[in-house]
């Protein structure tokens, strides 16, 4: 799920930037440092939408750098266990398939794909029901439930399932043509 939240960060600025454009410099450094990063607690920082407050700077002894506490609003993407969302399939193999929902990767193991769907290898590997009516392949859109998350230093990785009511394929690229 996407959230709009307020975060705080201590920014260090070199004295050469002090001057009439100090604030601009601080904001552009903040955007450069923060946008695109990921933390286990807040998820992926997608975009900074505004700076709420820049506190008083504190000179660090010995270096001359100044630390400013900056409060900013941003859009984050944070997946939760138990959350249901839609995702695009990016890769299919006999172990299961990978899907992407925005910046996050989700793996659905073949144990968590309904039992009536069989893996078919070939040019376009896919999972298909015995009557061929439902097919999961690359670029399919699926609705899945997140059942586990693993947090890395710079990434969040999720495990999902489509073996539940109202989950599964919402559109497959083959049918659309």
């Amino acid at each position, binding site marked *: 799920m996407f*959230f709009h939240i307020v975060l705080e960060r201590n920014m260090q600025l070199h004295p050469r930037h002090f001057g009439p454009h100090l604030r601009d410099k601080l904001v552009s450094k903040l955007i450069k440092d923060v946008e695109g990063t990921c933390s286990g607690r807040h998820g992926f920082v997608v*975009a900074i939408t505004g700076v709420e407050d820049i506190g008083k700077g504190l000179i660090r002894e010995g270096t001359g750098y100044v630390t400013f506490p900056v409060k900013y609003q941003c*859009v984050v*993407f*944070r997946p*939760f*266990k138990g959350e249901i969302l839609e995702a695009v399939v990016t890769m299919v193999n006999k172990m299961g398939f990978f899907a992407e929902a925005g910046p996050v990767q989700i793996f659905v193991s073949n144990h968590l794909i309904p039992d009536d769907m069989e893996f078919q290898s070939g040019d376009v590997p896919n999972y298909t029901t015995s009557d061929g009516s439902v097919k999961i392949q690359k670029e399919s859109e699926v*609705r899945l439930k997140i059942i586990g998350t693993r947090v890395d230093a710079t990434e969040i990785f999720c495990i999902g399932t489509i073996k539940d009511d109202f989950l599964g394929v919402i559109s497959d690229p083959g049918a659309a043509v």
Partner: protein
Amino acid sequence: MSGEEEENAAELKIGEEFLKAKCLMNCEVAIILEHKYEQIQQHSSESDPSSQVSQVFEKSLQYVKRFSRYKNPDAVRQVRETLSRYGLAEFELCTLGNLCPDTSGEATALVPSLKSGGRFVGDARDEKIEKMLNDLSLIKKFE
């Protein structure tokens, strides 16, 4: 996760911080990111590599464009207004807005927390949920 109580979105256990935060539906994120993307394009000079957007930004933008149920900003506002009349938590509101279930059975399967909290109780429960979903589909129809 760390020593905290285990999170589970189905029971709205998403941590104090996110429970109070404002959730965004995919369509709302699309409006924000597209606006921001235009701004960046305008200000950027081609020689300046710092003006490029991050991969996270790009992937998110693609994702929300693909999965936005409502394109028109007025419709998006209406969806939020309509759903907020039903006393939903932010997280529930956005899940419903993103997935647009058709029936009350589907809605409660996707958002199990609807059944708790006494907002939709008794015999009228399904009817009330049904009405809420109907309101939503009307917005979509007249968009």
